[in-house]
């Protein structure tokens, strides 16, 4: 009897512990600090932690060294393993919190980390006015700015092999998606080279051919979509997917192994001319930069922007572009985190972009020398670029996964759109967005 009583007691205690559980990410909301920070004020004895992803480990190295030297603070980085965008919220849910962190500065990804509760609002920081127009529009959610933009967002456009274009006699770059497809057909008939290199093995770049066709949708469509008054199954979206399938893939405008080819293969193929074009974001350029010199890239590669009906690019921010600061409750460290951002985008910025060989996000700071032409072309295209759906929709469905099913014949274009719609409504319902 006594044993039963004691086991009942243990179970009850555990039950109580269970009901006392709550989400550890909960915290207090705060107003944006208004007092300015002095970027180089002494911070002796202050220690800051910064979370970085596997592909952004070395990105803040220069600024951390310079900041430590200038202020006496110590900043240590901690790598959060991939997939970064899902491991960070899980880690936050367990109660762990850094002072600073890289995070995709878009309205669709910022809500994953509950900015109102967790992050320092950065509305009145001194660096905000220094940013370019496109960059200024990023990093905001629910009317507050939560992310500092340290590098310019990835630009989506076409990387092409100059030799193949020359052989095919293409001199005028296409000015719309239909012209792009016509150019592709011309390249195929004149040279026999695969016009597009598509990446079914890595899946994520599959979305770009569809995204480029959605650029004529007005802002009112996205506003309606975000209120559940319009759907991803809208004919415009379904037709874009259909066009990708029938006019590009089924029409033989992609290379033979498009179902299994990888992102790394894509870089190699457009460098060696076994494919003419790759529609992708800046990370393709970074991938090629890792193995080729700037001179070699300038000799072989070109870049042009493309939209559905004009020659404008798309921009797609990712985790390497934005830095957020956490509301930790320790005012000294919060102040130091703001100081770090001010230092990064202020005094240190010219040295930072020089060390990292990236384009500037601040019009007053010129680009460093030695950038490949494709990078300069992208920076130029950014001012008129429009956001990808990750920027416009409240949450971004994994359309590429459904597209990967489609290229294996397991989903129709209609079903791809439906899968996007299902995921979109599920997440927004969980977020408690009105209308869902």
């Amino acid at each position, binding site marked *: 009897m*006594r*044993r039963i009583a*004691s086991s009942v007691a*243990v*179970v009850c*205690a*555990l*039950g109580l*512990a*269970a009901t006392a*559980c*709550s*989400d550890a*990410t*909960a*915290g207090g909301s705060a107003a944006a600090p208004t007092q300015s920070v002095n970027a180089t004020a002494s911070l002796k004895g202050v220690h800051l932690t910064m979370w970085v992803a596997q592909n952004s480990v070395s990105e803040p190295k220069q600024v951390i060294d310079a900041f430590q030297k200038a202020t006496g603070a110590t900043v240590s980085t901690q790598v959060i393993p991939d*997939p970064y*965008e*899902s491991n960070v*919220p*899980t880690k936050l*849910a367990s109660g762990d919190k850094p002072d600073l962190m890289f995070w995709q500065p878009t309205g669709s990804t910022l*809500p*994953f*980390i*509950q900015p109102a*509760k967790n992050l320092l609002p950065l509305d009145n920081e001194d660096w905000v006015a220094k940013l370019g127009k496109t960059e200024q529009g990023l990093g905001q959610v629910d009317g507050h700015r939560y992310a500092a933009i340290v590098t310019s967002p990835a630009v989506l456009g076409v990387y092409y092999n100059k030799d193949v274009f020359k052989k095919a006699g293409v001199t005028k770059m296409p000015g719309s998606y239909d012209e792009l497809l016509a150019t592709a057909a011309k390249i195929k008939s004149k040279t026999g080279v695969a016009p597009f290199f598509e990446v079914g093995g890595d*899946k994520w770049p599959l979305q770009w051919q569809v995204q480029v066709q959605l650029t004529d949708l007005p802002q009112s469509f996205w506003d309606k979509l975000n209120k559940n008054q319009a759907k991803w199954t809208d004919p415009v979206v379904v037709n874009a997917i259909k066009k990708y399938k029938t006019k590009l893939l089924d029409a033989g405008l992609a290379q033979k*192994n498009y*179902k*299994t080819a990888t992102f790394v293969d894509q870089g190699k193929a457009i460098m060696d001319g076994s494919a003419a074009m790759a529609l992708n974001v800046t990370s393709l350029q970074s991938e090629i930069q890792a193995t080729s010199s700037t001179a070699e890239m300038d000799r072989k590669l070109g870049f042009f922007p493309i939209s559905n009906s004009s020659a404008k690019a798309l921009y797609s921010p990712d985790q390497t572009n934005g830095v957020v600061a956490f509301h930790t409750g320790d005012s000294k460290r919060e102040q130091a985190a703001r100081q770090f951002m001010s230092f990064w985008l202020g005094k240190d910025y010219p040295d930072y972009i020089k060390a990292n060989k990236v384009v500037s996000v601040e019009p007053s700071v010129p680009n460093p020398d030695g950038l490949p032409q494709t990078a300069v072309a992208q920076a130029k295209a950014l001012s008129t670029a429009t956001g990808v759906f990750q920027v416009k929709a409240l949450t971004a469905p*994994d359309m590429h*996964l459904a597209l*990967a*099913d489609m*290229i*294996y*014949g*397991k*989903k129709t274009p209609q*079903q791809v759109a*439906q*899968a996007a719609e*299902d*995921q979109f409504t*599920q*997440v927004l*319902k*969980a*977020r*408690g967005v009105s209308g869902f």
Partner: protein
Amino acid sequence: MADTATIGVTDVTPSKKAGGSARRASRRRPRSKPDQPWWFALPALAVFGVFFLLPNLLNFVYPFTNWSAFHADIKFAGLSNFRSVLQDGSMLRDIRITVEYAVLVALFQNGFGLALALLLERDTRFNRFFRAVFFLPVLISALAVGYIFRALLAQDGALNSVLSSLAGHHVDTPWLGSTTWTLVVVTLIHGWKWMGLAMLIYLAGLKSMPTDVLEAARIDGAGSWRTFWSIRFPLLAPAVTFNVTTALIGSMNTFDIVQATTAGGPGSETEVFNIYMFRVFGQGLYAQASAMSLVLFVIVVVLAVPVIVGLRRRENVQ
């Protein structure tokens, strides 16, 4: 969370046995006063409670809440998570794939294991060495196994190179790129990784067979084939029960090998339940992922219990 299902079900077999013998034992001798005070067990109970009982109990609570990456609080949400899971078109497909995966793994793992056990049955130095060699994959990390096979089976991988040089022309079979056969390839890898364990259990079964029965069979003139099918295989029934059950349950909870080889592709045709759950968890829908884990738990129970009962009955008949 995935462990819940395994632990819950593997308990079924031993508990039956343990329960029975405990009852018998208590009948035989009167309950004596314990030598130690009950609270000596508290540290162990606490560890058990925090790391086993509590997570398992919570797995029955979270599916009915709105827990997600987007809220600070966790509120009761009724059955809405189950409704979302059921409406999602991927669920039925993934259940089918998971069951196919489990059945194929059970076949391969036991087929390979039994064949190896029979080949390496005699206690020679040669056999002892190879038993150890075939057991090695069991000790390797499943992710490492997955990545190694992905490299070997890639379209420009080692296997195709070997085949090319043997065939005399270029072979570029996408081993992990077929919507029909990739599932079979992945289950073969799974079977390969765990066959050493099955071999060990079959060996133990073969070793513990009463020699007089085998001798009687020999005297009666039974050949080795006849002896195997009529005597040795039926006597292996307990080992078969254990191996088939652990293979089925283990493979229904598979994640690592599939994630490392195909990550659910091509065309989602190897997307087993746990990959699907991982995907949803990654979207920040924690409660919905918990609901799926509960669904998987129910499926494992519903499928595994009849199999175990059937296999146990088969043991008794013989």
